[in-house]
C-alpha cells in the first residue's frame, strides 16, 4: 500500500511541477479557458433545465430522463476512453520498464496506473458532469448535502468504467497473449458496443423518441412512463437516483449511494485480484509479442520521388498503425453518421420550409463545432507526434514550413471530406432548398480550412515533444487553449453569417425586401475573417517551429 501511495505521490509531484513550469500567461489562459467552458456549460444547463421544469405534465419527467440518459452516455464514453487509454497506460508506457524493475509489488503498480488512467480518461467527462450536476441541484432547489454527495458519487462512479476497462484488457491479453494493441482495443470496443445495444434494447428506447400526439390520455401515459426509470442494473441509473432523490423524493438516494459505492469498490477489488493473477504476465507478453510482424508491403517500402509524398506517406503509416488514433476517429465518425441518418426522421413539425431551413443552419453550426472538436483531438497533436523524428527534420535540408504545409493539405483534404459528406447528406435528409443545399457546403470549405490552420498552427506553437500519446497531447494546456479558440472561431463565423442568413429567411418566408448591402458585406466579412484565420495561425506555427530549440 505504501508503494502505491509513493508512486501516486511521485506522479502528483510531477503534475504539480509541470503546472509550476507553465508561464504566467499560459497558466492564466488555461484557467480562463476551463472557467469559460464550465460557466458556459452551467449557463446552458440551467436554461435548459429551467425550461423543462416549466413544461406542464411531462417537463419534470423529461428532465429526469435527460439526466439519466446524460449519465448513461457519460458511462459509455468513459468505458470507451478508458479502454483506449488503458492499453498504453497499463502495457505500453515507457515508465513501466522502470517500475517493474523496482522491488514493488505489481499490484501497487496496477493500482497507481488505475488511478492515473481513471484521471486521464475521465477529466473531460468530469468537466461536463460537474456543471450539469450543479445546475440540476440549483434548479430543483437541492439542500446543501446534495452538492458534496453528488460530487462524491461521480468520483465513485468514475472508477467503475476504469476498473472494467482494465479488467477487460487484462483478461484479453491473458487469454490471447499474441494480440496487438489494435486487436485488443477493437475487441474491447466491440464488447462495449454489444453491451450498449443490449442495454438500449432492454431499457426500451421508445421512451427516447420524439413524442407526437394530440390525445391527452396518451400524453399522461407518456408522462407516467417518463418517471419510471428503467435499467436498474446500470450504474448511471443509481447515480441518477441519487440526484433525483433530492428533487421529489421519488428515489431512495441512500440505497442508491450504498449500491453505487459497493459496486464501485467490488469492481476495483475484482480488477485488483485479476491484476494480481495476470498483470505481470500480460505485461511481459505484450513486450514479447509486440511488433514482430514483418511489414514488407507498405507505402514506404521503397523511397518516394517527392519530398511531400514522403512526408505524407510517413504520416499515413504512423496514423494507421496507432490504434488509439484511428479507433477514436472511427467512433467519432460512426456517431456522426448515426446523427446524420437520424435527421431522416425529423419530427413532424419540421415539414415547413422555414423550420427545415433553420434546422439546416443549426445542423451546419453543430457540424462545425464537431469538426472543431475533431481538430483538437486529431490535428492539434500532429506536430508534437514528430517527437521521435524531430532531430532528423531539424537537421535535414527541409524547412519546417514545407513540413507543416504538407501536413496542412493532408489534414485539409480529410477535414473537407468529413464536413462536405456530413453537410451534403444532412441537407439531403433535411430537404433544404437548392440554394442553401450548395451554399452551406461552400461555407463549410472555409470552416474546414480555418479549423485545420488553427489546430496545426497552434499545435506547432504549443507542441508537446515529451509525450507520445495523442490524447494526452490534446488534453494539455495548449490543446485546451486551441479548443477554445476553435470554438470561438465557429461562434464568430456563425455570428457573421447570421445577418445574411436572417435576410435570406425574411425574404424567402416573409416576403421582406432583401438588403443586398448587408448580405454581400456579411459574406465579404466572413471571407476576410477566414483569410485571417487561415493565414495567421499557420504563420504563428511556422515561426514558432523555426525559432525553437530542439
Amino acid at each position, binding site marked *: 500500500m505504501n508503494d502505491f501511495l509513493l508512486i501516486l505521490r511521485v506522479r502528483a509531484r510531477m503534475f504539480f511541477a509541470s503546472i509550476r513550469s507553465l508561464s504566467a500567461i499560459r497558466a492564466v489562459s488555461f484557467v480562463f479557458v476551463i472557467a469559460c467552458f464550465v460557466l458556459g456549460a452551467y449557463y446552458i444547463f440551467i436554461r435548459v433545465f429551467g425550461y423543462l421544469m416549466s413544461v406542464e405534465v411531462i417537463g419534470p419527467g423529461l428532465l429526469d430522463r435527460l439526466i439519466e440518459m446524460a449519465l448513461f452516455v457519460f458511462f459509455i464514453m468513459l468505458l470507451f476512453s478508458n479502454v483506449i487509454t488503458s492499453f498504453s497506460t497499463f502495457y505500453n508506457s515507457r515508465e513501466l520498464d522502470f517500475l517493474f524493475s523496482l522491488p514493488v509489488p505489481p499490484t501497487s503498480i496496477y493500482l497507481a496506473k488505475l488511478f492515473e488512467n481513471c484521471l486521464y480518461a475521465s477529466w473531460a467527462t468530469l468537466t461536463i458532469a460537474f456543471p450539469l450536476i450543479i445546475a440540476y441541484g440549483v434548479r430543483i432547489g437541492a439542500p446543501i448535502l446534495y452538492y458534496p454527495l453528488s460530487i462524491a458519487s461521480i468520483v465513485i462512479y468514475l472508477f467503475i468504467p476504469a476498473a472494467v476497462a482494465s479488467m477487460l484488457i487484462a483478461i484479453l491479453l491473458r487469454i490471447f497473449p499474441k494480440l496487438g494493441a489494435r486487436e485488443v482495443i477493437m475487441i474491447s470496443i466491440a464488447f462495449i458496443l454489444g453491451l450498449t445495444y443490449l442495454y438500449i434494447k432492454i431499457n426500451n428506447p421508445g421512451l427516447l423518441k420524439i413524442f407526437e400526439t394530440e390525445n391527452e390520455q396518451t400524453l399522461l401515459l407518456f408522462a407516467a412512463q417518463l418517471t419510471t426509470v428503467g435499467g436498474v442494473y446500470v450504474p448511471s441509473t443509481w447515480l441518477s437516483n441519487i440526484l433525483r432523490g433530492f428533487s421529489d423524493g421519488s428515489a431512495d438516494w441512500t440505497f442508491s449511494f450504498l449500491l453505487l459505492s459497493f459496486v464501485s469498490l467490488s469492481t476495483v477489488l475484482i480488477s485488483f485480484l485479476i491484476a494480481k493473477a495476470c498483470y505481470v504476465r500480460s505485461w511481459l507478453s505484450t513486450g514479447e509479442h509486440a511488433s514482430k510482424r*514483418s*511489414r514488407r508491403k507498405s507505402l*514506404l*517500402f521503397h523511397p518516394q520521388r517527392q519530398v511531400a509524398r*514522403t512526408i505524407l506517406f510517413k504520416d499515413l503509416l504512423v496514423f494507421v498503425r496507432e490504434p488509439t488514433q484511428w479507433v477514436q476517429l472511427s467512433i467519432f465518425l460512426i456517431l456522426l453518421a448515426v446523427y446524420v441518418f437520424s435527421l431522416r426522421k425529423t419530427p413532424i413539425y419540421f415539414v415547413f420550409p422555414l423550420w427545415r431551413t433553420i434546422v439546416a443552419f443549426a445542423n451546419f453550426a453543430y457540424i462545425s463545432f464537431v469538426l472543431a472538436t475533431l481538430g483538437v483531438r486529431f490535428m492539434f497533436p500532429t506536430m508534437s507526434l514528430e*517527437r521521435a*523524428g524531430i532531430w532528423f527534420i531539424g537537421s535535414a*535540408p527541409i524547412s519546417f514550413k514545407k513540413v507543416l504545409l504538407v501536413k496542412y493539405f493532408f489534414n485539409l483534404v480529410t477535414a473537407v471530406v468529413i464536413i462536405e459528406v456530413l453537410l451534403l447528406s444532412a441537407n439531403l435528409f433535411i430537404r433544404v432548398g437548392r440554394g442553401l443545399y450548395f451554399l452551406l457546403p461552400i461555407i463549410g470549405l472555409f470552416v474546414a480550412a480555418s479549423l485545420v490552420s488553427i489546430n496545426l498552427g497552434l499545435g506547432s506553437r504549443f507542441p508537446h515533444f515529451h509525450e507520445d500519446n495523442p490524447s494526452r497531447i490534446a488534453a494539455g494546456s495548449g490543446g485546451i487553449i486551441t479548443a477554445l479558440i476553435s470554438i470561438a472561431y465557429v461562434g464568430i463565423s456563425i455570428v457573421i453569417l447570421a445577418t445574411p442568413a436572417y435576410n435570406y429567411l425574411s425574404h424567402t418566408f416573409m416576403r421582406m425586401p432583401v438588403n443586398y448591402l448587408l448580405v454581400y458585406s456579411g459574406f465579404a466579412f466572413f471571407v476576410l475573417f477566414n483569410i485571417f484565420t487561415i493565414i495567421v495561425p499557420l504563420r504563428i506555427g511556422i515561426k514558432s517551429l523555426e525559432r525553437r*530549440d530542439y
Partner: protein
Amino acid sequence: MNRLVIKNLKKKFNNTWALEGLNLQLNQGEIFVLLGPNGAGKTTTLKLIAGLLRPTEGEIVIEGTNLNDDPIKAKSYLGYVPDEPFIYNKLTGREFINFVAGIYNVSKQNYETRLTELMETFDIGTWVDELSESYSHGMKQRVIMCQLLLHNPNLVLIDEPLVGLDPKTSKTVRELFVRLKEEGKTLFISTHTLSFAREVATKIGIINRGELKFIGDIEELSRISGKKDIEDIYLKLSADNGIV
C-alpha cells in the same frame, strides 16, 4: 575552402551559458573528436551545427554557406546522428531509411544495391522490416548509421557513436570512420570513449563548462599536459582549472 567554420559561437539557456565563444575550423578529410565531461557543452555544440539549436551569438559556415542565412543549403551538406537514436516507433527500419532517402532526394540509381551493402556492413537482418518499437538501442543506432551513409554527407556529426553497439559493430564503425576520412569526408564526433578518440581522431578538442579548453592533435595534447596516457591527459585538461 574550409568545410566547417565556427566563429565565436555562444549559446545561453535561460541564464546559463552552455557554450561560450567557440571558434573552430575543420577541413576535408579530418576527424575531430570533442571530449568533455557530462554537461560540458558537447551535445549543445553538435546540435547548434545541426541546426537544432539557435545560437545566441556567433556563426556557423558549412561549405561556405552560412547556416543562419541559408539553412536548407547548409544542411544539405551534413548528416547528423543524435546521442539517443530515436526512430518513429510505428515505422520499420527500412521505412525510416526510405523516409530519409525521400527527404534527401537520394538518387534512385543502384539504390537497392547500396542499401543492401550498407545493411550487410551494419549486420542489419530481417528485423529491418519489423516496427522499430521492438528495436534495442544498438539496432536503432545501426539503422541510423545506415541512413546517414545512404545520403552521403560531406560533414558528419555524430554524438556518442559507440553507445549501445556490440564489439563487432563498434569495430565496423571505427573502420568506417577512417574510410570516410580517406574519402575526404569530415567527421565531428562527440564521445566519452577515450580509446576511440586516440584511435581515429586527427584533431581533438576538450570542452568543459561551455569553453573549449584545448584543441590540437594527440602529440600536442601530451606535450601540453605532460602526460602520455590519454585518460590522464583528459582528466587533467577537463578538470575545472585545466590548462587552456
